[in-house]
């Protein structure tokens, strides 16, 4: 058995230190070692986006990243979206308002892909929204509602880009 790897990362704004198995993915580490079960395990081959999180400000499929790779990185998951004082972010609220959530399984990934899109492209065109969400599948086929929620968020809200916290590398 290979040795566990000690990593330090900034997770949803807080500095965390954790030991991970070298063959575990970031998705495994989030769910099993860090008790954050928002990111979902689904296809595990980069096709569905249910495991989407942000690493250093970019959306990635956490099933295709080794946990050891995020040493020193700024990682954000769906658990970090809601404001610290409680309630929902505008993006989350718009998802509810538009009925974009049915079973909900794909939603954490959809939200993180949308969040990353709105931070890098605050005023996306319709094709840019489609492209930004193209890596996220929804079995319940809420695509229209999800699209509308993202478009309305872009039109009505200022999406606060949180500067990645000073990374350790």
């Amino acid at each position, binding site marked *: 058995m*290979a040795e566990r790897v000690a990593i330090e990362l900034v997770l949803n704004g807080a500095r965390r230190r954790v030991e991970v198995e070298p063959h575990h993915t970031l998705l495994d580490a989030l769910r099993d070692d860090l008790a954050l079960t928002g990111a979902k395990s689904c296809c595990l081959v980069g096709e569905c986006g249910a495991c989407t999180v942000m690493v250093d400000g970019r959306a990635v499929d956490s099933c295709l990243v080794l946990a050891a790779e995020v040493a020193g990185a700024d990682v954000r998951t769906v658990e970090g979206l809601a404001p610290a004082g409680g309630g929902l972010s505008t993006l989350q609220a718009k998802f509810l308002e538009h009925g974009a959530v049915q079973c909900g399984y794909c939603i954490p990934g959809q939200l993180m892909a949308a969040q990353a899109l709105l931070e890098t492209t605050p005023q996306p065109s319709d094709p840019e929204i489609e492209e930004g969400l193209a890596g996220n599948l929804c079995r319940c086929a809420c695509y229209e509602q999800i699209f509308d929620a993202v478009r309305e968020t872009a039109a009505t809200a200022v999406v606060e880009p949180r500067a990645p916290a000073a990374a350790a590398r």
Partner: protein
Amino acid sequence: MQPFAYSRPGTLAEAVALLEERGPGARVLAGGTDLLIRLRDGSLDPEVVVDVKRVPELAPGIRADDGRLVIGATTTMTEIAAHPVIRHEFAALADAAAYVGSVQIRNRATLAGNLCNASPAADTAPALLVHGAVVVAAGPEGTRRIPLDAFFVRSGVTTLARGELVTAVDLPLPSTRLASAHERRTRRRGHDLAAVTMAVGVDARGAARLAFGSVGPRPVVRVDDTATLGDRSATDADVDAILDRLLGDAAPSRTSMRASPGYRLAMLRVLARRARATALGRLADG
């Protein structure tokens, strides 16, 4: 996934030494979008995975150096697709990078990983062949420059030797503009590996190069020295005659699940015509 050790060398010398010592027991990890899938499905079972993203010589970045555009090995598709010089001078490469997977995949997938994986369907390969790319490799014997055409052998196999890794890919900044475009055919819209990929480049003197992939064991490049493809007044019949000659030896797999051989051959011609039209348009736009 089967257990393996994880190593993150901070210097090129360390990385090369590890790869040389372990041979097939070690596997380079860049963006992981090909490797992690193979580690999970068990088709690869290395003792150690060597993450090269902290090796300074492989750092992401795109810079001009001595008449060439040098792209660091770990530069991602996202960065390539957005880069102004690539979008103008090597437009087919920007097209190809923008096609790869989804946002999530493009944020991780590296240029060198796309080439080293050596899939016949690798989207960036035809564009890089059209533009005369050179792979820069470092290994136990030092550094060498491998023209991309001499890099691919067959699916999954390159001419990299034991202990060697790719540090950069570079492209000659042309003195005469070579306008180019990339086209591909997939089974469905969105992210899917291509059934056929095609890049065409044309310059102001009428010279043209085309390259295609997913048809045969490796991507191939062909040169049109008749100046027909680069001539905007050429008739459809002239163009088709040249395409027949240049694409004549394409040999698609008979067993692939992605498309039948007849379909691929027909699509090669369609995509070549489309890519040529786009490239000619870009040439006219300056």
